[in-house]
């Protein structure tokens, strides 16, 4: 099915009345997902945003609760606020990233209401990639640059119109508001061509998890991380990184408990009250980072926690390239223990 961009734009503008609509916007130095009021504000031709759209479910800084002390008494109030949201223009890598985050924020015992309630009230309109950046490597993880996995409604740009794929019930509810038409044979051919594309850059991860099973004590970690500065760019720009810190912001007798993004690369991340730190150097922190994404997460959740969006590669100040890091692990010699 398809819809002309003009008609889609009109429907989009009508949705703004019922939903908070988030879409890619050019902010001068790149693309950012921002709330928009009209389709004309949306940047339609873009590679991907600088920061991943995870922030709409898991903001960098969010209030969990607030409290007020009066003498010895205290009153506590949840600060969970949820809105009906549409995320438009989500790339397949990021849509997959959200599916992975879903597994984190709802584990075998707990559901994180702050993430989940927002997530449940959000509709993801995915947009297939027709251009592929040199840092993209999503095909390594069985993600197609024009794949609809993780989206509720999925669009492919055909020039004057979008091909529309209804993926979920939520997507169907939105699609009902669109005047859809049939694709022509030529358009179908174009869609097929776009859908069959792969990222030119791919890494082989077929044996990475089992290889890493045996690499905890490998000397590979000794030199791998020498050039890493230990900043948080890779984690903050990652669509699947989910580590956070909880702290308190206090003013006189009132305060809020907030959570903020944190990262396993931060030296104080695992520092105990006693002064002991199980990951007190970059080597152990890098091992954790790679193991978590390519081994622990696989064992716990059945898939790798990397979607090949390439943001960490693009943003790294010292050009640490996760593709090379994984490749190096694949090739590293095993030490006999």
């Amino acid at each position, binding site marked *: 099915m398809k819809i002309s961009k003009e008609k889609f734009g009109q429907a989009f503008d009508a949705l703004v009345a019922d939903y908070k609509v988030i879409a890619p916007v050019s902010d001068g130095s790149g693309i950012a997902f921002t709330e928009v009021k009209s389709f004309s504000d949306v940047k339609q031709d873009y590679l991907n945003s*600088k920061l991943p759209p995870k922030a709409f479910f898991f903001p960098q800084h969010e209030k969990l609760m607030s409290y007020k002390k009066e003498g010895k008494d205290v009153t506590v109030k949840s600060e969970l606020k949820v809105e009906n949201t549409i995320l438009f223009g989500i790339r397949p890598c990021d849509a997959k990233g959200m599916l992975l985050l879903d597994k984190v924020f709802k584990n075998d015992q707990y559901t994180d209401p702050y993430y989940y309630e927002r997530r449940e009230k959000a509709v993801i309109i995915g947009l297939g990639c027709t251009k592929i950046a*040199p840092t993209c490597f999503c095909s390594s993880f069985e993600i197609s640059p024009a794949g609809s996995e993780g989206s509720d409604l999925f669009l492919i740009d055909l020039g004057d119109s979008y091909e529309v794929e209804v993926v979920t019930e939520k997507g169907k509810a939105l699609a009902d508001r669109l005047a859809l038409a049939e694709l022509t044979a030529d358009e179908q051919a174009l869609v097929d061509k776009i859908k069959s594309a792969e990222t030119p850059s791919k890494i082989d991860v077929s044996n990475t998890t089992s290889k890493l099973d045996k690499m905890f004590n490998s000397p590979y970690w000794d030199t791998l991380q020498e050039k890493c500065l230990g*900043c*948080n760019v890779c984690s903050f720009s990652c669509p699947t990184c989910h580590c956070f810190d909880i702290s308190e912001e206090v003013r006189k007798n009132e305060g809020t408990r*907030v959570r*903020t993004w944190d990262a396993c690369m*931060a030296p104080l991340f695992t520092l105990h009250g006693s002064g002991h730190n199980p990951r007190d150097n970059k080597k152990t922190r890098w091992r954790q980072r790679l193991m978590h994404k390519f081994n622990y997460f696989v064992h716990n959740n059945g898939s790798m926690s990397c979607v090949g969006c390439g943001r960490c*590669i693009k943003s790294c100040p*010292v050009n640490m*390239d996760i593709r090379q890091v994984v490749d190096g692990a694949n090739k590293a010699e095993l030490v006999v223990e």
Partner: protein
Amino acid sequence: MNNIINDIRDKARQLLAEGKVDVVIGYEKGSLPLKATPFFAHSPAEVDSLIWDETCENNLATYVAKTPGKKAIVAKGCDSRALAVLLQENQLVRDDLYIIGVSCTGVIDQRKIVAEVGEILEAGINDGKISVKGMAGDKEYLFAELKDATCQTCRYPNPVLEDVHLGETIAVSQEAPAFADVIALEEQSAGERQDYFKEQMSKCIRCYACRNACPLCYCQECFVDCNSPRWLTGGVNRAENLFFQAGRVLHLAGRCVDCGACTRACPQGVDIRALNRKMTKDVYTMYNHEAGISEDGKPALNEYTTNDPEQFLVKE
């Protein structure tokens, strides 16, 4: 250029083979076009990866104190100035350090290219010309067009401190620094400046790439991580971000060697240097001091004279 690369490799090979150092810190070709990446050569067999060109933008002095053992470092002017400050502050043992000095004509600011031709697919540097194939088109640049803002005002392209110098040295103008960029901002109204920095600070995501890339940000516990007292809340907004950046810049006042590593490391394109440059200008004009131009001497804020200017005092 090729000769320098060979010289660097020969020197590194010699130092490692003779056991004079345990590691040579230099650059190798990065995984992306026009990107170099820091490289640690531990054995003579690895030295052939070492390179040197206009893409070697990182300040390697950042690594020196954190790398155990005896080390050699490929140092351009700004790297050597950072080493000088680190030595002044007793952060390094001079005997454990071998400085391979190279003169630097400046590094490429990739952002200028990406803004015009999109993500870079391929690029080549030839004879001062940079030809780029981008996702949105191809273009050929003169190096001068792409020179990083820091390098355009650089007064110390030659290392101030070195054990060997490889390649030619660069003639330097003897004129006093002009600080045109700072003056341009100073001439704006306070309101305009406030707006400018508000906009810059709202971009910051507090990833601390600037801090970590900085060779002189070596505190064991940075004030942003400090728990008691807790200087910053967990908040990421322009007010908190300005607190962080202003606190950091004041801590670097009189020490900053204006290498631009912070600004280049910033994934969000925050103009951090605008703050540092203001301090550099003030320190130069008020105290006639430039950081890290020799091994001896002290950072500007560790010294004083009895007649330092004090126009900043209240009128009463």
